């Protein structure tokens, strides 16, 4: 379900038969299997790691954008804001079939 922790790719070994790398979680490093994100990541990217596997690349742009909305929340009218948050989120979502 479950414990998926974001970390930064510090090293990558895509030549290995099973793509792997070292992910830095902030002072803790571990070898992580990158097979499920291999085509989309490079060193410095953030990934979500579950049981030693990177299961997604963190979409940093989306993360920044949506966090901004949260941060600005204090400045908007409360009642209005909840509707706007929902609306902005739906508008911002990429509606694509393929990644």
């Amino acid at each position, binding site marked *: 379900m479950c414990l998926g*922790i974001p970390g930064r790719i510090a090293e990558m070994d895509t030549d290995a038969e099973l793509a792997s790398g070292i992910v830095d*979680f902030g002072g803790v490093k571990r070898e992580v299997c990158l097979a499920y994100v291999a085509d989309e990541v490079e060193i410095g990217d953030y990934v979500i790691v579950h049981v030693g596997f990177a299961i997604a690349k963190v979409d940093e742009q989306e993360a920044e954008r949506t966090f901004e909305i949260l941060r600005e929340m204090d400045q908007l009218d409360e009642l209005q804001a909840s509707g706007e948050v929902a609306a902005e989120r739906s508008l911002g979502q990429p509606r694509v079939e393929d990644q």
Partner: protein
Amino acid sequence: MPPTTVTVDFARLRPSISMEGSPLAQGPNCPIPLTDQERIQLAHGSGGKLSATLVRDRFLPHFSNEALTKLTDAAVVEVDAGRIAISTDSFVVQPLEFPGGDIGSLAVHGTLNDIAMMGAEPLYLSAAFVLEEGLLLETVDLIVASMAKAARAASVPIVCGDTKVVERGKADGVFINTTGIGKLDPDFAPTPEKAAVHDAIIVSGPVGRHGIAVMAAREGLKLEVEVESDAATLYPLVAKLRESAGANVHVLRDPTRGGLASALNEIAGSAGVGVELEEHSLPIPGPVNAACELLGFDPLYVANEGILLAFVDQSACDGALEALRSHPLGAEAAVIGRVVTQHAGLVTLRTAIGSTRIVDMLPGDQLPRIC
């Protein structure tokens, strides 16, 4: 740990026991292969020549002090008349070596700290070893040297000891027991019963380093962590606290196994007071936090070996903090909570988002989880 009464058994280390005719007494013709002479053998614990050699060549050079070198059945030392504190602890950590220490230094610091938490000045230590057959002598050297270094740094001699050897498979490398004696100060005797409402609860340094360092060093989890065990002798900090706050220091405790949560629960329970912690005040180093997130651990339950908890009267809090921070070991001392009138016997935490939850004792160790 509270002081315990202990009976110490000392091995007879008489080099004069005759080993004539025994294969161990033979020289270069000895049938034991050369490699085995680099390892602990059962004979090392039998009280005979090999035992004597072990003590003489591997222990004495490191632990040397007058009381020990006499090698009498019991060490004779000077103590002031009156009450003394005694504490004993056994150490069974795996792996034997980890970033920042080893089972040896841990065994020294651990018992010295138990004495110090009584407000007592540690005076003497004993060290008993149960060695597993097959343990590398090189490892013994490392451990003994480490113990000696730790004891010397604390100015506490190891005055007596014992060595036994058990068969392969019966001792996880080595088990060490240390017993310590300390001099009590009648005017400075912190105990849980003295905990008072509105006391400030201070932690002397960053939380969770030892447990994470040891966990990371274990084979299974393959974590590389930028954190070392904090194992250290805490008496200098206790001395600082005594100097600055005296009888206003109500409780002292080193939060070892079970972490802050267990230590605070024990104090809250035995003192019948409530404890409230502030999550945002807890000094948790980044790597400890990251390792805990990865494994699903709570830093409040992770073992520490080089920090202390102090319950200090609120009037003496600022002075106590300053005193701790004036020593390198206490540089990051912080107030993490207070004693409250409500929920006697329970520990609560006010979270960063403003809610409150109970911090309970765990039934056992934390286990790495997936969910």
